[in-house]
């Protein structure tokens, strides 16, 4: 590839940084560590720029590098998995509840966190990021048949979780009618609870209880 083409690819990489940061935050669940991952990813991408083939999907190529950086860091530097539930480290993928619609988004995020890691990942890549099945297969290093069936199960699992929530809400509403005392809105308590985060990964982590 010519030098001028490298320059163009580098410019295109800049436009991918926001999406890389979102993917990293999803993987790492910690915004500082997430940006460290993006940094390592960009350094590697710049080093390997000659291996990128013009006409292929740059975003998918960068996502593969980012995922590899994440997995390598886990394996090589023996980063300990810690469970740190402190508020400031809590980085949900959803926006704070500023608008009306974000309440539904927050609820969705809560249900999303309850899915298995595999289900979250496939939904993140296909439903959130909009990757095609074959691109997701490349990023996850899985056959496309596995992508299809995993996607089907992940979507069904999310439907089941929201159905459960709906029937819970109905029950609460029925109870609210029966009890003469003004009851709290059924959502109030669940919404104020942060979603259960996955175990977090940190540099030189210490195991907290």
């Amino acid at each position, binding site marked *: 590839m010519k*030098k001028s083409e*490298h*320059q163009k690819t*580098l*410019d295109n*990489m*800049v436009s991918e*940084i*926001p*999406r890389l*940061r*979102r993917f990293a*935050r*999803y993987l790492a669940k910690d915004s500082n560590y997430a*940006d460290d991952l*993006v*940094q390592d990813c*960009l*350094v590697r991408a*710049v080093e390997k*720029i000659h291996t990128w083939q013009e006409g292929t999907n740059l975003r998918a190529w960068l996502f593969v590098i980012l995922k590899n950086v994440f997995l390598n860091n886990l394996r090589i530097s023996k980063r300990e998995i810690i469970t740190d539930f402190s508020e400031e480290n809590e980085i949900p*993928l*959803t*926006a704070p509840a500023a608008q009306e*619609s974000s309440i*539904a*988004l927050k609820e*969705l*995020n809560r249900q*999303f966190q309850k899915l298995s890691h595999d289900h979250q990942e496939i*939904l*993140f890549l296909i*439903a*959130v990021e*909009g990757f095609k*099945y074959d691109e997701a297969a490349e990023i996850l290093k899985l056959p496309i*048949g596995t992508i*299809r*069936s995993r*996607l*089907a*199960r992940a*979507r*069904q699992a*999310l*439907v089941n979780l*929201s*159905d459960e929530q709906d029937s819970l809400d109905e029950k609460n509403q029925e109870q609210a009618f029966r009890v003469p005392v003004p009851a709290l809105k059924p959502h109030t308590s669940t919404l104020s609870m942060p979603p259960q985060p996955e175990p977090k990964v940190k540099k030189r982590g210490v195991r907290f209880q």
Partner: protein
Amino acid sequence: MISDDKIMLYIDGLLNELETAEVAAYLLENPEKSREVARIREQNEALKAMGKEILEEPIPENLLNIINSAKLKGHN
């Protein structure tokens, strides 16, 4: 009987005309499945907004610097 995998392809608009019609006909006769498809479509819309605010954050300087210094090297 139509597989769930095929229904996903239907939801994602990846089937040809004939197959799309087949799945649509199947869904008409299966209200339970049809309801599930509607829920998945709603969720797909909602999922698109996940983490959107991260995309709007300014890009940290140190990340931009990696690309910028690579661009400078390319010129030399």
